[in-house]
């Protein structure tokens, strides 16, 4: 690893980028301590990819400065390129080349000699469980295999900083979990990782700290737990069998919850925020059971990015950003 001493691996200050009249970035600051994973969280159009492209030298900012692996993005882009591995939002896989050839190509362009490039490519294919498909054209790969191949391409030169732009978007649940495992292995090797995502759950599992951006601005930062606490834990939801039982449910949830329950009379649904998770669920059901009341449906929802957004901005993630 080229960058072993502790310190800051990625630092960005006041990044601004305009596309015509669209302000894609409006003064983004972020910092990643060496060896840590930062989750850059935001809805469509928030500016995640724009940030990534600036940090990986693909795009010049209108103003602001950034340093990656101690190389200035503007003054020494080649230094940055030698230290990073990028897996962009859309897998940059050459469809007509085999998995092996894709990695070999990248290894050679990093300046590795032929035998080393061959060896490194085979190693990575095995590590990403692509060895069976290694000599088939990537055209026939599944979405998950392409993503893994693309990520393998980012790791060819054992970069000290790895940048992953929405590595699991578009993958099925199994593909997503496989990808998470791969990223966790990568983190275990000591790499610094910048990961963008639309899912709090993903940031929660992989990131040491999270920066939430919306419309080109940082609207929150902290550890995943801090963020979730900020919106008050989980949401407990009960659906009662009859309307008569709703007042009782409201009383019980008022006792076990951490806020005022909300009621939807028509669907006989009662909801409340809880801090104690499943404990609160069990407690609520126990108390209702003691009164011989049977609950039709009960659920505990973990906060979603939508909840975070709602609480931070007052608008959901699906809301269109005016351009």
């Amino acid at each position, binding site marked *: 690893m080229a960058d072993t001493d502790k310190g800051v691996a990625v630092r960005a200050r006041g990044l601004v980028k305009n596309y015509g009249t669209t302000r894609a970035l409006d003064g983004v600051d972020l910092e990643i301590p060496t060896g840590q994973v930062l989750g850059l969280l935001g809805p469509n159009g928030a500016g995640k990819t724009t940030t990534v*492209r600036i940090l*990986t*030298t*693909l*795009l*010049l900012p209108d103003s602001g400065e950034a340093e990656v692996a101690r190389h200035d993005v503007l003054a020494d882009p*080649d230094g940055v*390129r*030698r230290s*990073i591995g*990028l897996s*962009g939002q*859309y*897998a*940059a896989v*050459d*469809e*007509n*080349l085999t998995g092996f*050839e894709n990695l070999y*190509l*990248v290894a*050679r*362009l*990093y*300046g590795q000699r032929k035998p080393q490039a061959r060896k490194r490519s085979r190693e990575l294919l095995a590590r990403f469980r692509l060895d069976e498909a290694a000599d088939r*054209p990537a055209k026939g790969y599944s979405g998950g295999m392409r993503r893994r191949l693309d990520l393998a*391409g980012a790791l060819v030169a054992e970069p000290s900083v790895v940048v992953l732009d929405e590595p699991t978007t578009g993958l099925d649940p199994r593909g997503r979990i496989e990808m998470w495992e791969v990223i966790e292995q990568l983190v275990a090797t000591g790499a610094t990782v910048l990961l963008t995502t639309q899912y709090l759950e993903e940031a929660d599992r992989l990131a040491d700290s999270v920066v939430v951006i919306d419309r080109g601005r940082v609207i929150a930062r902290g550890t995943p737990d801090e963020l979730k606490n900020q919106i008050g834990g989980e949401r407990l939801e009960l659906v009662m069998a009859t309307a008569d039982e709703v007042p009782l449910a409201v009383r019980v949830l008022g006792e076990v919850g951490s806020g005022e329950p909300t009621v939807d009379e028509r669907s006989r649904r009662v909801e409340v925020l809880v801090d104690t998770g499943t404990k609160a669920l069990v407690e609520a059901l126990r108390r209702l059971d003691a009164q011989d009341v049977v609950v039709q449906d009960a659920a505990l929802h973990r906060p979603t990015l939508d909840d975070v957004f709602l609480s931070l901005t007052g608008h959901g993630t699906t809301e269109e950003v005016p351009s």
Partner: protein
Amino acid sequence: MTALAKVLSDSGVITWRNVMNVRRNPEWLLGATLFPIMFVLMFAYVFGGAIGGPGGDSVEYREFLIAGIFAQTVAFNSSYTVIGFANDLQKGIIDRFRSLPMSRFAVIVGRTTADQVLSVVVLVVMSACGLLIGWRIRGSFLDAVLGYLMILLFAFALSWVGAYIGLITPSVEVANSAGLIWMFPLTFISSAFVPQESLPGVLGTIADWNPFTAAVNATRDLFGNVSPAGWPPPSGWPAENAALYAIVSSVAIIAIFAPLATARYRRVASK
């Protein structure tokens, strides 16, 4: 590794990648074999009968024609560059290249060079086909090699134009036609298939000064192939200095389009 060695090595790697790409494409087999063979046979026998000189001697015409068909087919290969770039831009491969510590220039040289590698294969197929229908190289071996190099140099220059077109076209669909459309006037308003003296008025002047005409005339000459008996010999400065004019214009085209394409590449890629 020195900077120059890295540029050369990167260009080689990118050339390999582009050649593999075309080879894996099922259309390539048709493009490299069937089409060139068909061109040779169609022009030789369909046009040959009609145009074949005052005596109707299609053997003579076939001999005249070969250099023209070679040059045209190889020129058309620059469309691989046009479509290849449009594809790469659309698919995000260019982003991967740009995030690597590699030469920018190599991305384009690797394209234009790959076209010539493919062209060599096409030339071998067409030459074999030409020999079968009675075409012969009448000059020396060295001249013949120079003849082939002449065609390749001119095609290489056209690939740089192709690179620029590929980088300015907004989509792969547009690139598909934009890559080919300019090839038709370029290669037909020339001495490739008919005596340039037979073209009327302005077309004749264009054909005379068309660098493609010069490349074809120079190659024809190096192959030792002549116009059918009784055809008016091409005249004027470009015809009398065909090799010189073809080389100078190839170099000039590269000198203009290499910087244009490189600058354009920097721009599109950093959007």
